[in-house]
Each structure stands twice: as structure tokens, then as C-alpha cells.
């Protein structure tokens, strides 16, 4: 039996307080890239009661994703947007979720992400990360942007931090642990970075901008 919208909202209010829950409910967040970072960030934001989520990815769920990404074995082959949409709806059935199975580029970003208050960069490849960040900062200066860089391997948790680069641009990660250097991505460390990014988003929504 799924609880009513009012019951779920009341449960969130009880934990987060009326004022913060209203802000979370009114917020609109776009998560770009639904891998180890993005899928976990989206789950955290849905659980927190963010009212509108926009999830974007062009890829399908692969067996190599299951070590760290929020997908299930029976979802292999599904588009990540469809698979994560189903999961998010199971967590937060009343969340307004928009999904776009599409590859982002400099031409489609401004239109696709126009509705978001906060944009989360959660891509895998360094060049794609840089492309999205530069595109948003150059063309959409009114947006808040939370990016992730450096979380591969099993280096210490505490190397991962949140930095506020400029007023509206935050970056999480250790800045150096590159997946190309050998060691792959490990669930716990990716989750730490995803947690930093999701928490930066929630603090921005709350109006708390310090790090």
C-alpha cells in the first residue's frame, strides 16, 4: 500500500522541518549523467523530497555498472533514464520526474536544462565534464552548478571535499584520482563524492551557501 502524497509530505516535514521541506519541494534539479554519481545523487535528492527532478543520460544499464550504480541486475539493457525513473518512483511516487534519454552537447544544453534551478554534473569522462561546466557557466550564469571530479580508486575518504569555486559553482571530489590512472571506481568512494554533491545541492536549496 503506497502512502498518500500528504502522508509522505508530512513524514518528510517531520524530519526536515516545515521551512526546509517547502524549499526542497519547490526546488528543481537536473542531474546530468546517471552513472555512479548521478544515480546515487538522484536517489538522495528523491529521498529528501526534492519536488522536481530532471534525469538525463544516453546510455543503457550494463553489468559493469552494478558495482556502484543504483540499478538492479534485472534492469540490464534498459536505458538508464527508464531504469532510474522506475526506482525513483518507487522511492518518491509523487516526485515530478522528467527523463531525457539523450546525449548532452553544447547545442542542446541551454534548452534542455532551462527549467532547473540547480544543475548537477555527474558525467564519467573528463572532457564531457569540462564541456558541460563550461557551457553552463558561459551560457546560463544564473544557474547553480555542482560538479564532481576525482573519486576513483580506494584512496582515503577524507581527500574528497566540496569546494566553492565561484558564487554559483561548486566542485566535489579529490580533484586528482583519475579513472584512467588504473584503479577503477569503487562503490564506497563514489558514494562519498555523490553524497558531497547531493548535500551541496540540498544546502543550496536551503539557502546555505558556505561549504
Amino acid at each position: 500500500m503506497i502512502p498518500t502524497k500528504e502522508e509522505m509530505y508530512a513524514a518528510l516535514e517531520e524530519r526536515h522541518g516545515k521551512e526546509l521541506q517547502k524549499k526542497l519541494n519547490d526546488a528543481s534539479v537536473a542531474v546530468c549523467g546517471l552513472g555512479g554519481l548521478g544515480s546515487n545523487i538522484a536517489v538522495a535528492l528523491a529521498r529528501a523530497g526534492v519536488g522536481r527532478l530532471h534525469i538525463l543520460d544516453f546510455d543503457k544499464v550494463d553489468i559493469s555498472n552494478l558495482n556502484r550504480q543504483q540499478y538492479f541486475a534485472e534492469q540490464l539493457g534498459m536505458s538508464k533514464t527508464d531504469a532510474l525513473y522506475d526506482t525513483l518512483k518507487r522511492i518518491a511516487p509523487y516526485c515530478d520526474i522528467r527523463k531525457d534519454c539523450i546525449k548532452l552537447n553544447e547545442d542542446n544544453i541551454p534548452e534542455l536544462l532551462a527549467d532547473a534551478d540547480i544543475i548537477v554534473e555527474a558525467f564519467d569522462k573528463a572532457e564531457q565534464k569540462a564541456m558541460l561546466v563550461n557551457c553552463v557557466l558561459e551560457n546560463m550564469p544564473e544557474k547553480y552548478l555542482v560538479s564532481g571530479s576525482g573519486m576513483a580508486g580506494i584512496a582515503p575518504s577524507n581527500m574528497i571535499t566540496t569546494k566553492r569555486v565561484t558564487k554559483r559553482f561548486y566542485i566535489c571530489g579529490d580533484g586528482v584520482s583519475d579513472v584512467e590512472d588504473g584503479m577503477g571506481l569503487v562503490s564506497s568512494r563514489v558514494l562519498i563524492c555523490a553524497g558531497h554533491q547531493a548535500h551541496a545541492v540540498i544546502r543550496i536549496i536551503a539557502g546555505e551557501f558556505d561549504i
Partner: protein
Amino acid sequence: MVKINGELLDKDGKTVSEMLADMEISGQRVAVELNEEIVPKAKYDETVLKDGDHVEVVRFVGGG
């Protein structure tokens, strides 16, 4: 002197492209902020750093 990622360096008169080349950083994997403003990629070759500038070079590495 130009403050780059918190460190004072003698890069006065160099362009953003030249600064990145000195740092052996690929322009395809960075975002560059000059005095809190993003430097558009298309302007890396023509944006000249001057004394007192604050530069943040954000480097992206793979994984996500």
C-alpha cells in the same frame, strides 16, 4: 604576479592558453575562472593575464 589556484606565479602578460601550456594541462579538461568570471573557451588565446589577477583553473579527471 598572478594568483593561480591560490599560488602567486609570474604569468603577467601570458594568455590563458599559454598559462595552461606552462602547467601542462589540456584545455579540453578544464574550466578557467578569471576574477570570478568564466573565461569562454573561445577566448583562451586572446585573454591576457595581468598583475593582480586571480585565476582558478578547475581540472577535471575521469570517473563518475
